[in-house]
């Protein structure tokens, strides 16, 4: 009787159809014959077969989840249900569900798992770098670890905050019952999961040697693991594009009465600007990856110098995507920071318009700076002063974010709860990240720091120190709302201090190591850097251990201790905290009406400054 429950459109069916699809595609791909493809037979490398296998596999996976049901039913002229699996208990988490809160939870767990794998790769990399000479992994495995770490983190963390938290909270914050395109919303999540598994299969096809940037022509000469990288990033790009589109449509069209642009919570602004970057940048990534796939299969020469192409083309297109991408990673963190600091300072957000213009400024400028990644490449050398200026100009809108955060602290009544600690740490880490960025933006200084551990440490300060700290701030802040249970505060503080100290003890010295002449992604290094590198490796292991503290706390608090959080444990005045925890299906009984400031701290409750919220349905 129970077994029958497993039959249907769910994750199990999806995995089975995905695997079957993979092998069907593999067989289909081997039917292609041409003289120029003879080397496939000789080398045992058939890139065409692998690409088609991934494609058919992903289609099978999505069909198994039920994504084909709606279009097929409509094609056959049958009535189709608009919503799916919204009230089915635990089973709804293992399939296509159009409830935005379920998708948010799916994202949190799914992305969290892949980020954990990415972190394990980092541990293995640091294990190799304990000594200057190669001792643990062979060259190919080391490069594969480096590539898997970077690619997994970049791909997954792009949706790391917008996926779980914006999907869960953004409709609530703007007074909507759902996202604009609920089925697309579910699709973005499952595409990302399929992509993550595909990237892992790179290990079975010999890995890939290019790191997360995948520069040509190395990506054309690489073995079949490269196809996994291409398929992964293309699917991530597709997921990002759809996610961005969905968010933009939701913010523009689904706002409740009274929710004007000037009253949007700053978190929504952060997500909105991130979504615009995703929508405009990710398609470039998909295009450039298609070109690489063509070079690898159909023998085109887009990036082959001898065939009239140019490796510069890849570098340009990749960074036209890649630089907005790093702000796709930074902006959500800023949104979280400015959403959390008012709650724990008990003050309105200071300089709301300044903060919004900061986000918009970052969004616009991020499209104009990409060639600073190519300062020593020899391309457009005469334009370097322009890219130096545009890069340094980004520090102005970033400064707006800082000054808004600092102004909110002013005369506040600051409570150092765990989410606030992570937010203050964000300020410190992003400050170091920004200052190290000044060296990289300055061409003469960049000559030494470019491509060194300095630039690696710089973006870890901005992305890990910024995004990941904001991610944890958001987890400690909103998971009580999402699950109804508190996370243990004491272990949260232990996690915070271990992570904060170990993080700085890892990446601070790496800034110095880079300045002292250690290039990125090299498996060996000069002997005089051993002491510092050993220190960094030990710190990195402590940093990894801090994640285990978090994991233990997370599982313990949610599965065993189960202390009810109540509707509003932080005393926040934002709308999501006026609803029961967890937020009931369909969010509101009646669509709320908004009036006034989203952060009505310091004014009497009951005045018109307070958001007017219709009473929600009690938790079932």
């Amino acid at each position, binding site marked *: 009787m129970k077994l029958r429950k497993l039959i249907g459109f769910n994750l199990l069916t999806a995995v089975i159809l995905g695997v079957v699809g993979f092998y069907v595609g593999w067989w289909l791909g081997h039917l292609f014959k041409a003289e120029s493809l003879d080397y496939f037979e000789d080398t045992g490398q058939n890139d065409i077969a692998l690409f088609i296998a991934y494609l058919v596999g992903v289609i099978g996976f999505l069909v198994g989840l039920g994504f084909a049901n709606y279009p097929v039913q409509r094609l056959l002229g049958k009535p189709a249900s608009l919503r799916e699996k919204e009230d089915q208990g635990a089973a709804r988490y293992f399939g296509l569900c159009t409830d935005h809160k379920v998708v948010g939870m799916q994202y949190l767990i799914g992305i969290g798992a892949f980020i954990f794998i990415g972190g394990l790769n980092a541990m293995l990399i640091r294990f190799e770098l304990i000594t200057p000479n190669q001792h643990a992994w062979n060259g190919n495995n080391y490069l594969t670890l480096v590539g898997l770490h970077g690619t997994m983190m970049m791909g997954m963390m792009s949706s790391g905050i917008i996926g779980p938290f914006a999907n869960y909270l953004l409709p609530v914050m703007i007074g909507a019952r759902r996202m604009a395109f609920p089925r697309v919303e579910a699709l973005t999540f499952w595409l990302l999961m399929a992509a993550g598994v595909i990237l892992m299969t790179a290990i079975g096809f010999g890995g890939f040697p290019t790191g997360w940037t995948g520069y040509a022509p190395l990506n054309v000469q690489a073995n079949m693991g490269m196809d996994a990288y291409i398929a992964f990033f293309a699917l991530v790009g597709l997921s990002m594009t759809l996610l961005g589109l969905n968010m933009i449509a939701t913010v523009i069209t689904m706002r409740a009465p009274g929710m004007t642009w000037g009253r949007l919570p700053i978190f929504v602004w952060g997500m909105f600007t991130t979504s615009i970057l995703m929508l405009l940048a990710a398609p470039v990534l998909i295009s450039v990856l298609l070109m690489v796939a063509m070079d690898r299969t159909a023998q085109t020469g887009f990036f082959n110098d*001898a065939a009239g192409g140019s490796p510069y083309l890849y570098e340009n297109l990749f960074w036209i995507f890649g630089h907005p991408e790093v702000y796709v990673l930074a902006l959500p963190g800023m949104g979280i920071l400015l959403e959390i600091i008012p709650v724990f300072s008990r003050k309105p957000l200071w300089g709301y318009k300044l903060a919004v213009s900061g986000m918009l400024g970052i969004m616009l400028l991020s499209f104009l700076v990409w060639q600073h990644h190519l300062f020593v490449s*020899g391309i457009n050398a005469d334009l370097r002063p322009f890219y130096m200026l545009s890069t340094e100009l980004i520090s102005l809108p970033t400064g707006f974010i800082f000054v808004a955060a600092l102004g909110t602290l002013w005369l506040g009544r600051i409570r150092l709860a765990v989410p606030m600690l992570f937010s203050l740490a964000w300020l410190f880490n992003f400050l170091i990240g920004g200052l190290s960025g000044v060296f990289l933006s300055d061409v003469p200084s960049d000559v030494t720091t470019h*491509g060194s551990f300095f630039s690696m440490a710089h973006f870890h300060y901005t992305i890990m120190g910024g995004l990941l700290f904001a991610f944890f701030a958001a987890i400690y802040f909103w998971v009580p709302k999402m699950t109804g249970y508190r996370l243990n505060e004491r272990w949260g503080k232990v996690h915070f201090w271990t992570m904060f100290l170990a993080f700085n003890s890892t990446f601070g010295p790496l800034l110095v190591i880079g300045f002292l002449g250690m290039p990125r992604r090299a498996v060996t290094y000069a002997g005089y850097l051993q002491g510092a590198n050993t220190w960094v490796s030990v710190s990195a292991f402590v940093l990894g251990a801090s994640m285990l503290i978090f994991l233990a706390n997370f599982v313990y608090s949610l599965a065993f201790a189960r202390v009810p959080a109540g509707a509003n444990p932080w005393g926040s005045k934002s709308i999501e905290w006026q609803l029961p925890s967890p937020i009931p299906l369909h969010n509101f009984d009646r669509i709320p009406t908004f009036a006034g400031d989203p952060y009505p701290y310091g004014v009497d409750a009951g005045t018109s400054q307070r958001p007017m919220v219709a009473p929600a349905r009690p938790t079932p």
Partner: protein
Amino acid sequence: MNLRGHAGRIAALTVIGTAIVLPLVIFVLGPNMPPGKRTNAGSSQVHDNTVLLVVMTPFTVFILVYILYAVFTFRARSGEELRDGPAIHGHVPSQIAWLATTTIAVLFLAIFGSAELLASNGSGGGSGPSPLTKPGGSALPVQVIAQQWEFTYRYPTYGGVETAQLVLPVGRQIAFHVTSLDAIHSFWAYELGVKADANPGVDNVAFVKPKKTGTFQVRCAELCGLWHGYMFDTGRVVDGAQFATWIAQQRQAFTPVQKYLPKYASSYSPDPEARAG
């Protein structure tokens, strides 16, 4: 008034902190910044790094002082009931002051960086096939040919001799012409303050003038495949007489194989089938 008290104290602490840190930055940290002053490019970078540090110092001190001051002074006492702070939505004069200060600093940095870049002929960075500014006088051209996974060097003014060692005369202006035969590499001579990407089909020029003799490390700084981590060697800066002796030896040693090499060119079209023999 209370508010002026906080602002005054933060300002005072910022000034004191800056006054303590700035001399350390200018006189202790600055001159010792990487990559060292063994070449003109290195000196220009050290100078640049020092100026950047000086500009950053007051901002950094201000932000850190502010955060620490705010956390200690405005912290709610534990056990205290939840009370709101004042409903301050902004303060236009301080917003304008912040915007003005950061704008001036950023414009200064961009103008200073550009001037320094042009004045130092690229500060040792790869400046493309036809750099905007060139050093006066004649430069000794040295071609750097990167391939998976080693660097070789050609001296076109000495009959195009190609060797696996990089030796440079001290006090001469050098023009590195960096190119690649396969993937993208990056020629990084750390102690010289030189970094230039090696792209197939591209002649990427970087200028440097060594001021002191000694050895320096050369590493590939762009991921180029399996043995990227082993793509390094050690170069030497020697005096003029030693260089003349060395290059004569190299020409003698390489004459027998010279005829199999392609003629010197700004870049080479790789012919993998021919190379595979």
